[in-house]
């Protein structure tokens, strides 16, 4: 079964500094990887995904993520964080092998300090 690890509970970063949120995964077959963001009292919103091809994926709001097959990682990055990026970020994985279900990590709280 697929699984995701997000090792940090909270990531604090100063506004304007680079932001990185870490994610590693385990899956049978080729992975399909996703990042979602959740603002307070809201549902999850899709940010970006990796399916195949270029290892660097660009998404909404200036976010990007790098797929690294050898390290089974899919870290989310943003070159310059904004206060409005403060939210809960979830990494998720599915696979074309088996039941296609998404497995979510526990989430990382990102706090951008003005």
């Amino acid at each position, binding site marked *: 079964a697929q699984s995701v690890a997000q090792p940090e509970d909270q990531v604090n970063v100063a506004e304007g500094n680079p932001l990185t949120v870490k994610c590693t995964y385990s899956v049978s077959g080729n992975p399909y990887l996703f990042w979602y963001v959740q603002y307070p009292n809201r*549902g*999850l919103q899709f940010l970006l995904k990796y399916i195949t091809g270029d290892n660097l994926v660009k998404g909404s709001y200036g976010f990007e993520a790098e797929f690294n097959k050898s390290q089974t990682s899919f870290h989310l990055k943003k070159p310059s964080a904004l206060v409005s990026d403060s939210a809960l970020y979830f990494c998720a994985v599915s696979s074309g092998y088996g039941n296609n279900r998404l497995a979510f990590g526990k989430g990382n709280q990102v706090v951008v300090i003005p």
Partner: protein
Amino acid sequence: NAGVTQTPKFRILKIGQSMTLQCAQDMNHNYMYWYRQDPGMGLKLIYYSVGAGITDKGEVPNGYNVSRSTTEDFPLRLELAAPSQTSVYFCASSPGTANTEAFFGQGTRLTVV
């Protein structure tokens, strides 16, 4: 363009009461899901459906039931509410293939007292 709509947004139940959480999507998606979100635990899959008339258990199905009579609707039923079911519940839908993103509703915050 409503997307995924959940009702109610908030609910307080007494132990042993029953209720149905409603979920509707207008995107003609085949797949629909129910998740619960507990602090620090991420999202756990309760039930999912791959199309009208077809449902299957997820990771944490005990205490819940679902039905899928139409493509649009996927209600979640709690028969005998317990304090352990206090959580935020999210409904989601997707076109169905593993490489497509899911669309989430706004959530239902349920408290069982």
